[in-house]
């Protein structure tokens, strides 16, 4: 696998097919945890980490599932692995970094129902990236860079929403509606990247 192919994979996952703004995965935390830049950043890092590790583990597990010919258990196994992985991450963070745990505490269990994690796990095994094929390394890079894409999107939104707190918004538009309209404008911006047509 050449360096160019890896670069294409990374740019593709971060910008062109941004998880939130073009694939619609992980919208719940995107809307729910984007009120402040700090928490958005914490959530972003947690997602990057979990997505990277989950990609590798689920990809390897999928090979076992194929070997044992029980592919129909894929969804169940993946979600259980992801849920226990998140539990593990929570325990580790609580032990070694209480500060980070206090900041992430609430959001970590939420990642279980973040469809981005299960989404990237399933995509890794069902939709191989055309130019680089599939493999453990590809799955890992795809997971990490998809997580970075998620973090970028949620950070931008959090930045805008912090500014928005002082704005005078009609009552009926407050909360989710205005956030969705901002996301819409962001998605228009990211749609421009689809013209890249690389790889």
């Amino acid at each position, binding site marked *: 696998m050449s360096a160019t192919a890896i670069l294409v994979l990374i740019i593709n996952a971060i910008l062109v097919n941004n998880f939130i*703004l*073009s*694939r*619609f*995965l*992980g*919208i*719940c935390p995107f*809307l729910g945890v984007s009120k402040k830049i700090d928490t958005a950043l914490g959530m972003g890092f947690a997602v990057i980490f979990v997505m990277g590790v989950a990609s590798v583990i689920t990809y390897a597990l999928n090979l076992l599932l194929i070997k044992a010919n029980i592919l*129909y*258990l*894929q*969804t*169940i196994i993946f*979600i*259980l692995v992801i*849920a*226990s992985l998140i539990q593990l991450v929570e325990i580790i963070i609580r032990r070694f970094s209480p500060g980070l745990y206090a900041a992430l505490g609430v959001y970590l*269990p939420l990642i*279980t*129902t*973040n*469809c981005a*994690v*299960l*989404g990237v796990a*399933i*995509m890794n095994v*069902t*939709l191989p990236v055309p130019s680089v094929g599939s493999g453990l390394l590809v799955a890992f890079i795809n997971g990490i860079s998809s997580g970075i894409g998620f973090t970028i999107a949620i950070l931008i939104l959090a930045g805008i929403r912090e500014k928005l707190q002082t704005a005078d918004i009609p009552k*009926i*538009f407050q909360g*989710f*509606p*205005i*956030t*969705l*309209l901002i*996301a*819409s*404008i962001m*998605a*228009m911006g*990211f*749609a421009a990247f689809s013209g890249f047509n690389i790889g």
Partner: protein
Amino acid sequence: MKNNKKLTANEIVSPLKDGIIKNNPVFRLVLGTCPTLAVTTSAINGLSMGLAVTFVLTCANIIVSMLRNFIPRKVRIPCYILIISTFSTVVDMVMKKFIPSLHDSLGLFIPLIVVNCVLLARAEGFASLNRVLPSAMDGIGIGLGFTLALTLIGIVREFFGAGAIFGYSIEALSRAELPMTIFILPAGGFMVFGLLIVAFNLVVDKANGYFAKKKAAKKTMPAENQINIEGEEVVL
């Protein structure tokens, strides 16, 4: 914890009704937003996704409710996820076998029903606290509310984005340069969703205010708490 009291009709019917309007999962609770945005490029996709979720939600609610006294509190979330993923696998397999074209167009989002927050929220917030029949009704109600919302978003996006309704293209629209591709693109999805939340809340608040006024006139009693969105509704 055992409760053998007979269920009143209201306890059975009200979860069904609440699920569609008052607790509409998409417009009111804003849960399960990923499939809401991703599959609603056409009305038929939204409708079928909604029905698939309704099925999974109703079955999962029934099982969770049956097992609510047996599942230890500490491991309840993995248990719920296991139950939900079982049913979503069933939907996945049935759809792949009998309606492969639909399975292809919904794609990734069929297995992703597992992580739809609506399901976990109802298992945790309703089914684990209530008896089987109300839980089943809640599943159907919330499911129908979800279906309604997805179909509505699908209709709007398909109408403006492809100039068609449920796959039937409209001649006049295509002449009027209507197909505005942006509505099919992600940006349009966010926009339509945001505006429909506003429209839905506007209509429901107006209707609630109207009914509350009517009732107050009838009973000559103040009824402010009936238009409270978040709080519990006064028993009708």
